């Protein structure tokens, strides 16, 4: 893990958004700081969530915020290790403006050995007037207490043999 270069959201975005769900959505990297990442979900006709209004569905916004959450965690820890979303909450303040892209800015405000906590906003151009607020909890998959115990047992066995 120490050989791995420090996670850089800008570089990682080039790789992440080439394929899969985030590639299909056309997510774009915008900016990052020490513990936050901002991504952009460009406007697209076939992501509309209502028949009569040109407003993005909220599904793609959840995807945007989920991805920005994961990247904010890696940006904070500096390491790209698997994380699993446990719980993600989105509070919608208002619909995004018609035919507008949506930006998702998420900060990782706390990490423990096993969990990471994030909060952020989705906005359509003005950070001071968000479309939605989000809060989430992620599990650090690499931290597995069972594997740690197994490793301890394994090293204990080895030590035992050495004692013979």
């Amino acid at each position, binding site marked *: 893990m120490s050989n791995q270069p420090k996670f850089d959201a800008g570089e990682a975005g080039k790789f992440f958004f080439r394929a899969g769900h985030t590639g299909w959505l056309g997510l774009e990297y915008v900016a990052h700081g020490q513990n936050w990442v901002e991504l952009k979900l460009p406007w697209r006709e076939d992501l509309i969530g*209502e028949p009569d209004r040109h407003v*993005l569905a909220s599904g793609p916004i959840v*995807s945007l915020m989920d991805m920005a959450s994961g990247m904010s965690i890696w940006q904070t820890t500096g390491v790209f290790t698997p994380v699993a979303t446990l*719980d*993600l*909450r989105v509070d919608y303040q208002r*619909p995004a403006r018609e035919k507008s892209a949506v930006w998702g800015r998420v900060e990782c405000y706390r990490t423990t050995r096993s969990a990471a906590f994030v909060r952020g906003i989705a906005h359509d151009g003005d950070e001071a007037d968000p479309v939605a607020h989000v809060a989430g909890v992620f599990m650090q998959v690499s931290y597995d207490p069972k594997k740690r115990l197994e490793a301890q047992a394994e090293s204990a066995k080895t030590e035992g043999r050495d004692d013979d």
Partner: protein
Amino acid sequence: MTEGSSLELTAYARSLGIEVEREEDGLPVLAVDFGRNVEGRPGHFHGGATAGLLETAGYAALRTRLLAEGREPQLKPINITVQYLSAGRQKRTFALARITRLGRRNANLTVEAWQDDRTRPIASAVMNILMA
């Protein structure tokens, strides 16, 4: 799409590949096949795609119930909380909502998504939807 049903999925839902699989107790069971457009971690559903399916199932159920009651309000999301219970694998995934409470202005729903085993959902959601 069930014949005679007036339910129409959104452009987003159709684009993602979400379909109405069948109806249960008058509410739609939605389904989406695994494919590149829903893939996150290689070989697994992206959490956002799963959330999109849950949310679409919530709206579809509420819309269906409202139409049955002769109501057709505009639906506005207030919030959604998604709990991820296990990884979504390379399989067709289903979702069905339960309308916990239907008032005049607000509806409370719970939604579950599952793959092979209905009793072991891969994700669940709680939604509040405003009806204007």
